[in-house]
């Protein structure tokens, strides 16, 4: 019985296709021992900026049907603390480490990339050009193909690490941005970040999130995420990390069939922390059905 779940995601050889997505798994250890970091083929740590960012005022989250809104605002202690406190510990564990990089300016991203370029603990950088919860940077980059291209070019100059670009679904045509990323030299795409949404407290008449709007994640957005992966696969040759609402091994396989060669999971861990372990277990049965992972099979 074939139970080798390994899969090639661009330059990275992952032990299995499942990836803990940025912002939902901290720095890898909060769920121990229920979800040890080596459960995953790779762990993407929280969005990291050059300086510490305080994040948004509470309330930061709201539950929604089959999902949730978040407006964390990329709270993080900055890249230096990441390097000193979190990376060494994660490097001891048997998984690939990807750092989600954020900035308010191109220089902000470049600064983080520069500091991480020499860190052997880091296997790839994920440029987050898609966070809907910060005023500058984030999504304002990700909706403009030119800005995405410029950012990739500038970051490429300071690092040899694989550059994964995480795109926002909040655009008219995701293939335009995906192609711009490919042409600018990105090594892979990560699809999707959250959908822009909001919630209102009818008692007070006010938006629930202090930030007014937030990012929608969880199973609710899975059909949108799957469509974005499918479209991006058809439009580019870049390897794709598919994510958005993944909650089962079947979802993982669906994303692979849409064109992903790594599949992220986030919000579903909150609903049930047993999910990642269960998925990896169940993926073995799926894997045994195919000679190789059926990447992009839905396009045939």
């Amino acid at each position, binding site marked *: 019985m074939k139970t080798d779940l390994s899969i090639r995601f661009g330059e990275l050889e992952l032990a299995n296709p499942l990836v803990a997505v940025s*912002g*939902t*798994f*901290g*720095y890898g*250890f*909060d*769920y*121990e*021992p*229920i979800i040890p970091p080596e459960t995953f083929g790779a762990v993407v740590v*929280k969005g990291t900026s050059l*300086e*510490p*960012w*305080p*994040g*948004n*005022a*509470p*309330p*930061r*989250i*709201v*539950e*929604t*049907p*089959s*999902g*949730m809104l*978040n407006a*964390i605002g990329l*709270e993080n*202690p*900055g890249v230096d603390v990441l390097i000193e406190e979190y990376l060494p510990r994660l490097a001891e564990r048997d998984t690939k480490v990807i750092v989600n990089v954020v900035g308010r300016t191109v220089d902000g991203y470049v600064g983080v990339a520069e500091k991480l370029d020499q860190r052997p603990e880091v296997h790839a950088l994920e440029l987050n050009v898609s966070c809907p919860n910060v005023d500058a940077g984030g999504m304002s980059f990700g909706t403009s193909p030119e800005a995405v291209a410029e950012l990739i070019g500038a970051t490429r100059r300071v690092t040899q690490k694989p550059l994964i670009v995480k795109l926002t679904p909040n655009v008219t045509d995701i293939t335009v941005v995906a192609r711009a990323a490919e042409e600018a030299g990105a090594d892979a795409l990560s699809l999707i970040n959250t959908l822009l949404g909001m919630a209102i407290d009818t008692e007070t008449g006010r938006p629930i999130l202090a930030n007014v709007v937030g990012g929608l994640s*969880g*199973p609710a957005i899975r059909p949108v995420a799957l469509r974005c992966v499918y479209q991006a696969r058809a439009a580019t040759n870049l390897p794709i990390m598919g994510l958005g609402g993944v909650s089962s091994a079947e979802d993982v396989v669906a994303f692979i069939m849409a064109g992903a060669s790594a599949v992220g999971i986030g*919000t579903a*861990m*909150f*609903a*049930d*922390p*047993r999910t990642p372990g269960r998925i990896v277990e169940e993926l073995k049965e799926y894997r045994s059905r195919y000679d190789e992972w059926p990447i992009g099979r839905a396009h045939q």
Partner: protein
Amino acid sequence: MSSATDADLHLFEARVAHNAPEGTARRLTLAVDEPIDPNPGQFLQVGRSGSETYLKRPLSISDWDAARGLLELLILPVGRGTRHIASARPGEMLTLLGPLGRGFPSPDELGAAPLLVGGGIGSAPLVFLARRLAASGNPPTTFIGASDGQRLAGEKSLAGCSRRLVLATEDGSRGEIGMVTSVIWEHLDGLEGITSIAACGPAGLLEAVKILSDRLGVPAFGSFEERMACGVGACLGCAIPMAKPGDGKKYLRVCADGPVFALEEVAIS
């Protein structure tokens, strides 16, 4: 940033042994086989299947009988999640993640004469704390209040393990009349010598307790609430403003850095 040691975290199913009303709240007794070792003030992320809600709900461990493995939840049904969990039938299994967060300081740290102050369903975690304090030989003085008698929580258990229990209701339907925090001031004489305050309740109560603790010159701790997703410190969803932000850091996590904070640590809103 991680608080508890790794081995502390459990994900387990527990059988509902009893479900009984306690005023407007429900008291659920769960039979726990898992080798958990919770502290007062810690909480659980609780899920019940067949729910329309997507995330689990944070609920304090209201009481814990380690010998018999019986855990109590005191649940006020306020929304879809709490209503669904509060109506779990005996025999059913709930899914629990925990124990979570940092609880109240140890009996040693709370000293010889601790004062407990609870408001509404906020009394829930105080029951477990009072039981531990009593077992350590220093039963607390306890004040609990609510808008009316139906909303007083944990009274019976608290009576059993407090040095003294004072009840206050705003409508006077039980105990003394008025907000519990006002009633306390009338008992100030009797509070000489207290060594610490542990409180749980709405923001207004915690604020009043902070003023009281300043006046009495004793340390005060409160259990805080915020909307939660992960419950373990991973998502940064449950932010609470720090009293003294610094170094680019403005917020703490209620789930992992709390839910119990020294009242001077955080901005009570």
